C-alpha cells in the first residue's frame, strides 16, 4: 500500500514539477506547482511526518501559492509567446547539477540507512517539544523575522497615509 501511494505521488509530483517549467501560461504553471506541493505533502505523510505534511499544505499550497495566484491574476500576466532561449553554458550547467544530484541520490539509496523514527516523531507533540527545547533560539529568531516582515508590509501599504 505504501509503495503504491509512493509511486502515485512520485509520478504525479515529477510530472507536475516538469510542467511548472514547461507550461506556457503562468496560471497553469502555478496550478501545477500547487499539485507538486500536494504530492510533497504526501511524501511527508508517508515518512511519518504528519505535522510537516499538513503544514506543507497549509503554508505552501494554502497561503504562498494563493498569494502568487493573486499576483498573476492582478497583473494579468500573459502566456509566453516566443520560444524559450537557452545558451549552451546554461544547458551544460543544468546538466551537471542534475547529474550530481542524481549520483548523490543513487549513493544515498545504495549506502544510506534511514534513521529509526522515535514514537513521538512527526506528531504535534514531538515537533512542538523539539521546537521549544532544542531549537528554541532559531524558532524565536524566525518569529522576529516574521514580525519584521509583517510590520514592513503594513508600512508599505500605509505609506501614503503617513
Amino acid at each position: 500500500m505504501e509503495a503504491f501511494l509512493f509511486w502515485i505521488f512520485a509520478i504525479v509530483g515529477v510530472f507536475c514539477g516538469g510542467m511548472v517549467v514547461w507550461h506556457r501560461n503562468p496560471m497553469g504553471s502555478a496550478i501545477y506547482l500547487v499539485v507538486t506541493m500536494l504530492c510533497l505533502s504526501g511524501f511527508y505523510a508517508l515518512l511519518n511526518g504528519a505535522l510537516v505534511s499538513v503544514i506543507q499544505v497549509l503554508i505552501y499550497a494554502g497561503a504562498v501559492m494563493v498569494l502568487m495566484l493573486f499576483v498573476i491574476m492582478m497583473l494579468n500576466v500573459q502566456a509566453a509567446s516566443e520560444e524559450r532561449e537557452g545558451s549552451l553554458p546554461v544547458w551544460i550547467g543544468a546538466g551537471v547539477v542534475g547529474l550530481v544530484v542524481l549520483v548523490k541520490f543513487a549513493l544515498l539509496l545504495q549506502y544510506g540507512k534511514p534513521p529509526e523514527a522515535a514514537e513521538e516523531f512527526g506528531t504535534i507533540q514531538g515537533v512542538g517539544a523539539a521546537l521549544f527545547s532544542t531549537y528554541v533560539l532559531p524558532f524565536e529568531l524566525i518569529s522576529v523575522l516574521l514580525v519584521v516582515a509583517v510590520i514592513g508590509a503594513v508600512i508599505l501599504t500605509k505609506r501614503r497615509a503617513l
Partner: protein
Amino acid sequence: MDVLIILIKAGLVVFALLNLAGLLTWAERKQSAIMQDRVGPNRANIGKLTLAGLLHPVADGIKMITKEDFIPEGANRALHTLAPAAALFPALVVFAVIPFGDTLHLFGREIPLQVASLNVGIVYIFAISSLAVYGTMLAGWASNNNYALLGGLRASSQMISYELSIGLSILGILLIYESAQLDVIVQKQGELLWGFLPKWGIFLQPLAFLLFLGAAMAENKRAPFDMPEGESEIIGYFVEYSSMKFGMFFLAEFVEIIIVSGLTVTLFFGGWQFPYLQATGFVWPFGWGELALPHLFVVLMQVGTFAVKVLIGCWILLLIRWTLPRFRYDQIMRLGWKVWFELALINLLLTAIIVLWVT
C-alpha cells in the same frame, strides 16, 4: 481488510454528505417558504406523488446534468473545468477527521467510527479549508469575465480574512483539551464539570463558539456573508458556469453547511457524546445509579446523537441565512479584521492564562 473497512467508512461518509446536501436544498427552500409565508416547492411529481416537494432535489439533479455545458469564448478551458472540482474537493474531504461515534466492537474487531484518526486533526482542517479558496479564485479568473474576476477576488479575500478567526478560535479548544486529535477532543468532552455539567466546548469556550460559527459562515459564503455571490444584484464568481459545473459549486455550498455544522458539533457540542452516556450505559450524576445498555445500542445511540446534533446545526444555519440581511463589503472586512480577529486573540490569551493557572 483494514483498507476495506476504511474504504467502506469513507464511502458511507461521502454518501451521507452528498445525500444530505441534496436534502438540504429542499430543506432550505421549504424553510424560506415557511419564513416568508409561502408554500415552497410542491410541483415536481410522479403521478400524484409529490412527497411535500421532496422530488425537487431529484428534478434539480436531472436538470443540472442534462443542461448545456457552456464554456465562454476566450476562457481558459482547463482551469474553467477544474474550478468546480477544486471547490467541491475540500468540502468533501474535511469530514474525514470528524468522528461520528466511539469505537465499535464487531466480530472481534475494533472499528473506530471515524475515517481517519489523525494526530494533527485540527491542523488538517485548517490545511484543507485553506485549499477551498482555489475554487473561487480559479472560477473567477478562468471565466474571462471581469465581473466574475471581481467576484472571485471578493470571495477569496473574504475567505482568507476569516480563516484567521477560525484558526484562532479553535486554538482555545486545543489548549483546553490538550490534543489536536478530534476523537480525543470528543472523548474528553464526555467528562463532567462540577459533577453534572458535560465538559462541552460551548461551556468552556462560549466566545470562541460564537467567533467560530460566524467565521465559518463567512467562509461558507452564505448570507449574511454572501457578498461574493450576491445573486440578486451584484454578480458572483460563478456567473459563467452552467449545468453540472454550476451544480458542483451549489453542492459544495450545501456540503459546507454540513461541514460547518459537523465541526461546530464536534468542537463545541460534544460530538457524539450524549450527556451521561458512557461506553457501558448511562451513569447518572450525583450518584443516582447506573443503567447498563448493550454495546450495539450505545454505539447506535452515539451515531444517532451525532446525526441529530448535526441536523439541528444545519437547521440553525438555514434559519440564520433567511433571517439576516447582507453585510456591506467594507463592513465584512472591518468586522473580520478589526473585531473578530482581536476578540479571538483576546480569547486565546485568556484561555492560555486560565489553563496555565489551573494546571
